């Protein structure tokens, strides 16, 4: 804020604090729930302060998991989610950076058509094409595998489009200077384009990692073996208690654990992430 008025400062802080409270309250409730015993949440009043069962609940989930809902230990599911999120994020970035490179820097027949085909897939997210995609994956025998979990989600029009925009901001003179300096196309890509889009890659990685981590419908459909359950789909299975009350304290403990990796990624890459989204100087 450019104006220096105490009242406006106060207002800004009030609004921001209110925003933080709205966002943080559910997380706090989840944390509180994860530290209580199995019956505390069924009594009608929701406790607002942590209870005594923190260690017990968390070690149970990390160790054995919730056998009654058929989910394995949290560790296995976290690992599955991590593999899936990393494969999706890295795969999407590799594919889209290469296709954007082709679209921006090469003149080939039907280049415009290729770009529009990629662009049109924006209108066909997984949820829309889920039945045929499932059929294809099933026919290829990729049910219950990491390949089945990740490959159908890898192609990304959004990321291709983003890299296209990034490459278009790189001045032509730089490309020409590299040409005169004797850098062939792939050398130019590796030595100039990739380092220049480093921050954009980082920003995209954060977004895509979270996208991959939060995948719910697709893993739910194609994994039937507990070995391939991801954490987000697993939480739903836990909450879906058939013959009894959901064990909310354990579900919440799992939810808290599931939050950790995305938070680590966001915090760890925060600086690059912000730079990648706001930086315009090339």
């Amino acid at each position, binding site marked *: 804020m450019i104006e220096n008025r105490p009242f406006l400062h106060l207002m800004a802080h009030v609004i921001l604090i209110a925003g933080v409270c709205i966002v943080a309250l559910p997380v706090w409730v989840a944390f509180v729930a994860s530290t209580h015993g199995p019956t505390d949440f069924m009594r009608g009043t929701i406790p607002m302060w942590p209870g005594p069962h923190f260690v017990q609940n968390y070690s149970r989930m990390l160790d054995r998991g919730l056998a009654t809902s058929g989910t394995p230990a949290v560790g296995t599911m976290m690992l599955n989610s991590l593999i899936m999120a990393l494969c999706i994020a890295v795969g999407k970035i590799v594919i889209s950076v290469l296709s954007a490179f082709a679209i921006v820097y090469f003149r080939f027949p039907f280049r415009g058509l290729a770009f529009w085909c990629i662009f049109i897939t924006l209108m066909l997210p997984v949820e829309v094409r889920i039945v045929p995609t499932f059929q294809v994956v099933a026919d290829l025998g990729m049910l219950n595998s990491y390949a089945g979990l990740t490959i159908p989600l890898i192609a990304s029009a959004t990321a291709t489009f983003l890299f296209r925009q990034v490459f278009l901001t790189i001045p032509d003179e730089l490309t020409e200077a590299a040409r*005169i*300096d004797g850098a062939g196309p792939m050398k130019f890509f590796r030595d100039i384009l990739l380092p*220049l889009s480093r921050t954009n890659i980082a920003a995209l990685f954060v977004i895509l990692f979270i996208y991959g981590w939060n995948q719910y419908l697709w893993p739910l459909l194609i994994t039937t073996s507990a070995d391939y359950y991801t954490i987000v789909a697993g939480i739903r299975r836990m909450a879906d208690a058939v013959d009894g009350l959901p064990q909310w304290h354990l579900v919440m403990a799992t939810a808290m654990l599931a939050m950790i990796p995305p938070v680590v990624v966001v915090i760890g890459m925060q600086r690059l992430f912000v730079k990648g989204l706001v930086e315009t100087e090339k």
Partner: protein
Amino acid sequence: MASITLSNLGKNYGGGGNAVTGVNIDIQDGEFIVLVGPSGCGKSTLLRMVAGLESISEGEVRIGDRVVNQIEPADRDIAMVFQNYALYPHMSVRQNLAYGLKNRGTPKAEIERRVNEAAEILQIGAFLDRKPRALSGGQRQRVAMGRAIVREPAAFLFDEPLSNLDAKLRVTMRLEIKQLQRRLKTTSIYVTHDQLEAMTLADRLVVLNGGRIEQIGTPLDVYRRPASTFVAGFIGSPAMNLIDARAVPHLPGTAHAGTVGIRPEDLTVAPDGPIEMQVMAVEELGAQRLIHGLTGGEKITTTLPSDAPLTDRMRLSFRREQLHLFQRETGRRLD
């Protein structure tokens, strides 16, 4: 080092009209050639055709004894300095200088030697390990030139390298480029729209207009004997007065001319001068003043010492040989 020959060079972007038409230039080994003209005259296109960044529609380019029409820019043995420097922003100055050599597989020790040598010539040794964004405009310009020097190419191509600098720095860098070229004796082609830059740098000037060559010659030749009204009006500052001959029928020797040209600095005040000027505006430049006026309905400008007396009407004189006569229809020089 090598000579460069452009023969009958033309560029057609398709969609009618040529960007460059029928250009013939013989550039000697070690010569400093400046292509000058207003924006859109095809001078950059011409340079980029020599560099290999633009395809050649007609004619051929020879560097040394090799026709390079179909040769990649990297293999033409040229180095180019761009208007916006085009330094790789993520590489240090040292890496920027070395990149072209590294791509050509030059041995490490040799790269090291050439980079240090170029750094010394350009006095950029102190910031070899900085990134380009930590440098000022003038320093970036030097690095861009350094990148050309380390390659030890057959020719330097400059594409308006000074136009992003402020006026003062431009004058300094202009001088440095000139001295550098004298020292390295590398054939150079330099593109600019600034006639002053063109005059001061060139061994020979090539004045371009509408994709065609108007005149080739040494700066003084072009200044003293402009081949057309276009060149006359473009080279020299303030621009030459170009007056319709019918407005000044009493001037000697102008009977068969369409346009009469006289440089502002060639006009002097004389009580019995043949030109009567009605003063419209005066611009003070310090050492001298520019006086704009009308004679016979035509605009005319003269430069006078700042201590010369000013009146509303002045009579101006000139020497006969300072008069430039041009044909009416074609604008070509008559004598």
